[in-house]
């Protein structure tokens, strides 16, 4: 049984078919990369899986059960959460408090939640900034905070939406290392990323989305050399 399974997933916004008949299965322990040109529908897939949008057609199963129609917090409770492409910190709260909100997902006691959050803040490398208000973090630290808050909910599957966009090469290397360590802790990952060297290095499998449809799927090496994928990115005749 797959950890996450989407079948015939479609989402229509008025006249725009953002996602069309999309199938994807992800097994426990996998890192799957979701790539495609801008506007391909990647983030819409994340919104559908995490419960922020409901699909126009198709099914989504997590651990065998349908999660269509569940609200994001209920899906998070089941063990699936996501980060946001445009970082969404709780600006007025400190770093540790941001992460505590996530930790409360499984831990009702405030003292225990604070301790767990503290460990995760250290884990993502925000230890020195734990009592700083989230509004004063750099973009790179905000991306770490997004991951820390997601991890604190103790997910089995974490959806990362462009965790590296806007970062410099050193920061990207650090985030790659962090994602590897998250995976080593037994968390499966579905990743949207435009930074190609990163997604090639991290993913076990790549899925290419183009105009809302699946264009290709396979090992990173195969997909990178796929004629149709190259055309989708660079235009025909490339």
């Amino acid at each position: 049984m797959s950890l996450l399974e989407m079948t015939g997933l479609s989402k229509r916004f008025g006249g725009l078919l953002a996602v069309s008949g999309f199938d994807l299965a992800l097994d426990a322990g996998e890192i799957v990369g979701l790539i495609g040109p801008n506007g391909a529908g990647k983030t819409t897939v994340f919104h559908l899986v995490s419960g922020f949008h409901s699909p126009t057609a198709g099914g989504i199963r997590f651990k065998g059960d349908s999660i269509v129609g569940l609200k994001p917090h209920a899906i998070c409770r089941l063990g699936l959460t996501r980060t946001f492409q445009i970082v969404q910190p709780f600006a007025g709260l400190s770093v540790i408090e941001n992460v505590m909100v996530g930790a409360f997902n499984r831990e009702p006691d405030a003292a225990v939640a604070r301790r767990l959050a503290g460990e995760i803040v250290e884990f993502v490398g925000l230890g020195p900034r734990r009592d700083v208000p989230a509004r004063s973090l750099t973009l790179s630290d905000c991306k770490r905070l997004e991951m820390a808050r997601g991890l604190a909910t103790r997910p089995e599957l974490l959806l990362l939406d462009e965790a590296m966009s806007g970062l410099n090469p050193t920061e990207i290397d650090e985030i790659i290392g962090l994602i590897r360590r998250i995976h080593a802790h037994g968390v499966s990952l579905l990743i949207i990323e435009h930074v190609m060297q990163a997604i090639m290095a991290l993913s076990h499998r790549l899925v290419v989305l183009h105009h809302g449809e699946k264009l290709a799927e396979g090992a990173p090496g195969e997909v990178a050399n796929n004629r149709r994928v190259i055309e989708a990115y660079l235009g025909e005749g490339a």
Partner: protein
Amino acid sequence: MGARLAGALAVAALVALPPLLPKYHLEVLISVVFWAYLGIAWNLLGGYAGQFSFGHAAFFGIGAYTSTLLLLQAGLTPWMGMLLGGAVAAAFGLFEGYLSFRYGLKGPYFSLVTLAFAEMLRVVAVNTKAVGSSLGLVVPSAKAAPAMFMFSNKLPYYYIILVMGALALALTWKIGRSRLGFSLAAVRENEDAAEAAGVDALGMKLRAMALSSFLTALGGTFYAQYFAYIDPTITFGPAVSIGALLPAIVGGAGTVLGPVLGSFVLTPLSELTRFALRGRAGADIMLYGAILVLVISFLPQGLAGFVRDRRARVGPR
């Protein structure tokens, strides 16, 4: 610990000094604590959950009318009527909140809905003979009867509202450090991110709504017993809605002591302007308004935020 000592002294003064105060000063002090109490109740929803109610008079009026009608019609002691009024107000708050939040009303739209509900109740009360219409209701107060929430002088009322304020403050403090408090703050800061982190945004906002409306209704019963008279304009009118939110906002929304600080500054201020400009109807409100504009422009984080920033700057880190 200078702050702790100052706090202990303030509490001691609030408990020990009032019997020594002249009648007028005691009345002002009751007024200060009363508006602080309403501010604390409003703060749970408006400050912590960030849902800016402009119509808390709805809950205040429900509390005042429920306990008063039960007293007049059934002879029920307002001590009981107070809790029943709180329950009715909480149910009404849940109804109002569910309608608004279920359909995603936020910010000014939510404020307008709460204002509309309060005004609606005011118009209903004005036009309903059974609740005294615009003449209002007189609460019997001729003889002292502590079991019926009636006292022959002001002092017991002072201690009652002081205890109510202290309990509401303790509740706020406890919530602020709990899962509920963090969840409310998360919803206030960013609802989508809160949901993604496992926070049931709708459920949390409804909890804040129920608690806030319950506490506000208790204030309504206190008002009815203390002034021995209620009418639709006083209890359901915008003056109460604004009076509940101002101490919290000026003092520091979303902080435990904000509404208390706010009321200790605002209530005497409004008394002073009224005294200074007596005989010129409305002039005192204009002056009061001008002072409010200044306070809000220069202290956008409220008094509590100002104190915190000062201490952060000069105090040891």
